[in-house]
């Protein structure tokens, strides 16, 4: 494991920001930490890179963080040498060029004069900024700044990459681009693939990761591969379209095998009891006809990650 964290806890005053988080990320793995603002994602990242210390624990529940085999508390320098960190707000020198910025980060990271230039060129090519080496950082678009930030985090060839909400506020086209880079990084199978931990508030982004941990109120409440998580609700999500939509929604709420009803813009998603999709579809078809409502689509669909998280958080049937 390149990232190994056990029982992390951290409070700020009376607020318990992180409350017993453990996680492991293997070489070549892309792990997504998903959760709303304030769930504790950033605090976890900051503890992993040694910027803040976890609270000390009394008793058996030991806290430890190992990065590439080094204990971040006792072997901080060695551990940090293996970490690339892109914080949510990072600073670039706006009046320096792309290349000058990267050179600065390379030198801070101790790259020698022979090594920094080829490495910088290689990394700029990887992130797609090789044609902009002489542009001042202040003149870059938001997406390009983000890429330069990624390049700076990668310049010393870290084995562990921590990305804190790298795509928040970035538009969808750029976001797609950036994710392609992240996935590529983890997928590149050098002898020792790198471990990437990325945080995001967005569920649709989490589906791109190999493993996902859902964070809420300082804890990882659910963890697994997107496929395995979706498997848990396989066959339990039904899509309903027709009109009037609000009427169909009320109708669906009267069917006892329906556990939850979610309205979307032009359709309704139902979560039904395991094995009951066929029955619910048949019943709703009959009810809608009786009530003179028009059903244009009624079918079983693939569950989304969001469906799974919500079902697990509710602990079973919808309680409103």
């Amino acid at each position: 494991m390149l990232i190994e964290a056990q029982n992390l806890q951290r409070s700020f005053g009376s607020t318990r920001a992180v409350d017993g988080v453990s996680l492991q990320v293997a070489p070549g793995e892309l792990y997504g930490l998903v959760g709303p603002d304030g769930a504790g994602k950033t605090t976890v990242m900051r503890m992993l890179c040694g910027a803040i210390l976890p609270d000390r624990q009394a008793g058996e529940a030991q806290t430890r963080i190992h990065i590439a085999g080094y204990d971040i508390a006792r072997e901080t320098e060695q551990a940090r040498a293996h970490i690339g960190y892109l914080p949510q707000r990072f600073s670039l020198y706006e009046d320096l060029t792309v290349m000058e910025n990267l050179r600065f980060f390379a030198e801070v990271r101790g790259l020698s004069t022979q090594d920094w230039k080829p490495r910088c060129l290689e990394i700029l090519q990887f992130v797609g900024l090789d044609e902009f080496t002489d542009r001042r950082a202040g003149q870059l678009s938001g997406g390009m700044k983000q890429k330069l930030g990624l390049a700076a985090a990668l310049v010393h060839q870290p084995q562990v990459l921590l990305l804190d909400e790298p795509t928040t506020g970035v538009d969808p086209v750029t976001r797609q681009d950036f994710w392609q880079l992240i996935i590529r990084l983890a997928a590149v199978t050098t002898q020792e693939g790198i471990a990437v931990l990325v945080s995001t508030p967005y569920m649709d982004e989490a589906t791109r990761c190999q493993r996902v941990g859902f964070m809420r109120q300082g804890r990882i409440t659910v963890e697994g591969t997107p496929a395995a998580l979706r498997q848990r609700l396989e066959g339990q999500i039904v899509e309903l379209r027709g009109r009037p939509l609000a009427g169909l929604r009320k109708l669906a709420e009267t069917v006892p095998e329906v556990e939850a009803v979610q309205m979307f813009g032009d359709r309704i998603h139902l979560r039904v009891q395991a094995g009951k999709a066929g029955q619910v579809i048949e019943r709703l078809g009959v009810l809608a006809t009786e009530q003179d409502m028009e059903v244009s689509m009624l079918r079983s669909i693939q569950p989304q990650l969001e469906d799974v998280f919500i079902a697990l958080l509710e602990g079973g049937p919808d309680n409103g």
Partner: protein
Amino acid sequence: MAEQVIAAQELTRRFGSFTAVDHISFSMQAGEVMGYLGPNGSGKTTTIRMLLGLLLPTEGTASVLGYDIRRQSEQIRLRVGYMSQKFALYNDLTVGENLSFYAGVYGVRDKERIAEVLRQVGLSSLERERVGDLSTGWRQRLALGTAIVHRPRLLFLDEPTSGVDPTARRAFWDLIYELIAEGVSALVTTHYMDEAEYCGRVGIMRDGRLLAMDAPSALKESALPGLAWDVFIEDHGAALLLPALDSLQKCPCVLRAGLTGDHLRAITPKDSGAAALQDYLVEAGILQVRIEPVEPTLEDIFLALAAR
């Protein structure tokens, strides 16, 4: 036929030689939730500013709630509500004080109305809490409360649910749908596909132009210039993922190919199919693949239309 709350014809705004909004025409009926999706700089905010009467169009016209945006902007602003992603709330004031403040701005002096809004957004029990102590989800509800206190008939929502818990997001949208059921309409600008899914119709913008506007399901059925496929590489997994991607990106029968975690997503023209993809990958030496047709996501549509 329902009343038109927004009617825009050939709405255009130029800044010098740059055309921020380029001949946009659309209409929105009372009771609709319309999503407006586009990258930064695509003209979303300029459009909203014109609809609010804050910026004059260079060409074209629009009416909002029946009022002309050029001549009757004050009438419009009194009758619409605006909720920004950076909630304009006073952190040092309580929930009730924030709401009273906004009510005052709109000339609403009725205490009963304030109590009603608090009930509607589910904040009655938090009336005396300082806003700075609330979670994002609660502040978002309060921001909605401040935007509806003067009973607007049209709401402008800018990325209303970014950064909140999925349960909080669903609860928020239930609130919006309650308002809609009362006859309110909403125009939602967003970057996020999962937010756009809550809209009855979605418009996609790029470079100042409105490229498509339809229900999410209809966009998925017809706006993609092709078919969507999930491609799983079953031998050597990760090691062959990138070579497979590279060869798909070169394949003449692929419009767009990308990585999604442990597999690939490919968009092909409508007359092409799984067999063509398979043949191409086999020729590239990737033998064991599984190719499944999938329903395109809103993101697939968006990237096909908005990325060049």
